[in-house]
C-alpha cells in the first residue's frame, strides 16, 4: 500500500519521522516543484538518495570530492562501460587507489548532501513504495534518520535566514568598489575562492553555483559571507529581476505536542460497568 500525498500537507520532516518510527523499508519518490528525487530506506535507515540532474555515478562523486579529475572519469567511462558503482569500487579498492572506509564516507556525504537539499522542498508530490529498493549495483550507506532530521531541521532554519537575506539567485555580483580590506589579505576557503573567481556582473549566482557543483545552501552561505564582509556587492539590474526562487519553508506543524504534565487523565463518564456491557452485547447482535 503506497503512502501518497503533497509536501504542502505533509512535510519532509514528518515523512522521515514516520519512516523512522515505523522502521519502513522502501523508496520515497518526491516530485518537487523544480526537481525530482528518490530516497531509499531499509528498516527505517536511509541507504541511498538519487536526484534528477545530479550525476551519482561513483567516479563523478569522487571527482566532486577532488579525488578524481575529469580525465579520470572519462577514462573509467571508456574502459569500464556497463560496470556498476560496486564493480568500480571493488577495482579501486583492490588496486589500492582508495580505501573502503574513505569511499564509504564519501558516498555517505554525497547522500547526506542530497537529502539536506530535499529538506528545503515544500511543494510537490510524494509517494512511498514499500519494499521497492532501486539500488542494484549502487553503493549504499546506512544512516540513522534521527541525526538527519535534527541536522535537516537546523539547516532549514539556516536556509530560511539565508533566503530572507538573499532571496533571488538570479542576480549577479560584482566586486566592491571600495573594499575595506584588500582581497589578498583575507583568508578565504577553497570554496570561497571558487566562487570569487566567477564574480562578474554577467554571471548570476545560480550560474556560479551550477558551474561549481554547489547546492543552493552552499552558494547562499558563501555569497552571504562575502556580502557581509563587503567584498562583493549585488548588481542592481535595471531590468526586472526574475521571480524569487521558492524558498518558503514548509509550514511548521502548528499542533504542538501536548505537555504530558498538562494532559488530563482519561476518565469514563458516570456510568456503571454493566451498562457498557449491555451496549457491547447489543452492538454485537446488530
Amino acid at each position, binding site marked *: 500500500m503506497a503512502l501518497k500525498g503533497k509536501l504542502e500537507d505533509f512535510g519532509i520532516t514528518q515523512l522521515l519521522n514516520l519512516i523512522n518510527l515505523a522502521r519502513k523499508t522502501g523508496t520515497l519518490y518526491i516530485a518537487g516543484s523544480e526537481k525530482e528525487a528518490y530516497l531509499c530506506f531499509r528498516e527505517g535507515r536511509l541507504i541511498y538518495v538519487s536526484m534528477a540532474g545530479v550525476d551519482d555515478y561513483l567516479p563523478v562523486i569522487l571527482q566532486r570530492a577532488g579525488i578524481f579529475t575529469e580525465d579520470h572519469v572519462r577514462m573509467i567511462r571508456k574502459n569500464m562501460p556497463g560496470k556498476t558503482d560496486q564493480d568500480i569500487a571493488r577495482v579501486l579498492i583492490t588496486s589500492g587507489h582508495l580505501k573502503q572506509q574513505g569511499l564509504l564516507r564519501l558516498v555517505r556525504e554525497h547522500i547526506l548532501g542530497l537529502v539536506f537539499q530535499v529538506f528545503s522542498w515544500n511543494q510537490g508530490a510524494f509517494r512511498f513504495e514499500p519494499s521497492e529498493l532501486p539500488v542494484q549495483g549502487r553503493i549504499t550507506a546506512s544512516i540513522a534518520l534521527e541525526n538527519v532530521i535534527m541536522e535537516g531541521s537546523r539547516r532549514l532554519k539556516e536556509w530560511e535566514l539565508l533566503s530572507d537575506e538573499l532571496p533571488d539567485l538570479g542576480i549577479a555580483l560584482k566586486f566592491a568598489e571600495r573594499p575595506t580590506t584588500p582581497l589578498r589579505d583575507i583568508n578565504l576557503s577553497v570554496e570561497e575562492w571558487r566562487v570569487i573567481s566567477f564574480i562578474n556582473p554577467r554571471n548570476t549566482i545560480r550560474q556560479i553555483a551550477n558551474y561549481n557543483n554547489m547546492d543552493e545552501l552552499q552558494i547562499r552561505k558563501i555569497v552571504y559571507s562575502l556580502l557581509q564582509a563587503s567584498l562583493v556587492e549585488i548588481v542592481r539590474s535595471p531590468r526586472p529581476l526574475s521571480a524569487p526562487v521558492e524558498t518558503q519553508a514548509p509550514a511548521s506543524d502548528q*499542533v504542538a505536542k501536548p505537555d504530558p504534565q498538562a494532559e488530563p*487523565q482519561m476518565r*469514563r*463518564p458516570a*456510568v456503571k460497568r454493566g451498562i*457498557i456491557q449491555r*451496549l457491547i452485547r447489543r452492538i*454485537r447482535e446488530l
Partner: protein
Amino acid sequence: MQTLKMIITGPFSSGKTELIQCISEIDVVSTERKITRESERIKDQTTVAMDFGRITIDEDLILYLFGTPGQKRFDFMWEVLSEGMLGFVVMVDSTRPETFREARRILETFRSYSPVPYIVAANKQDLADAWPAEDLRIVLRVESGVKVVPCVASDRESVKEVLLELLYSILELMDEGKVLG
C-alpha cells in the same frame, strides 16, 4: 429511560455521516446542505449542524450517535455536542493526508472538552491509497494506549467494530482502575 451518547467527529468529508447512517436504526436526522465554498467541493453536500442516529439497547437504554459538522466554521457547536458524552470517535479519511493535521487539531480539541475515552477510526481502508492505521497513529501522534481502528464507514460490520472498540476501551480503563469518574 436512560440515554447515552457517543460523538463521531473528524475533519470535513472523513465519513462521519456515512458511519452513523450505516448503523443507526432510524433514518439519520441529517442536516446536510449543498456545499457553497469551492475549496470544500469534494462532495456535493455536507453536515452543517449535526447528524443524529439511534441504537436502542433495551427497553430502558438508548445510545445516541452524534456526528459533528466537519466544516471548520461550525466548530463552535462541538463543545455543546460533547457535553455528557460516553466517549468519542475521531474519523480520519486515510486517503487524504491533507486532512491529518486537521484531524489532530480536532482530536486535541475534543480531549480538552472532556477527558473521556476515545479511539481513532482510520476510514476508507478499502481504497488502494489508504495510509495504514499504524502509520496514522504516528502522524496523528496518538498515544500508545489509544486504539487506531482500520475501518470502512459504509460496511456495517466494520462500523460495529469501531463502536465496540470504543466500548472495550472504556471497559479496559475501568479494569485498570485508572478511572477518576
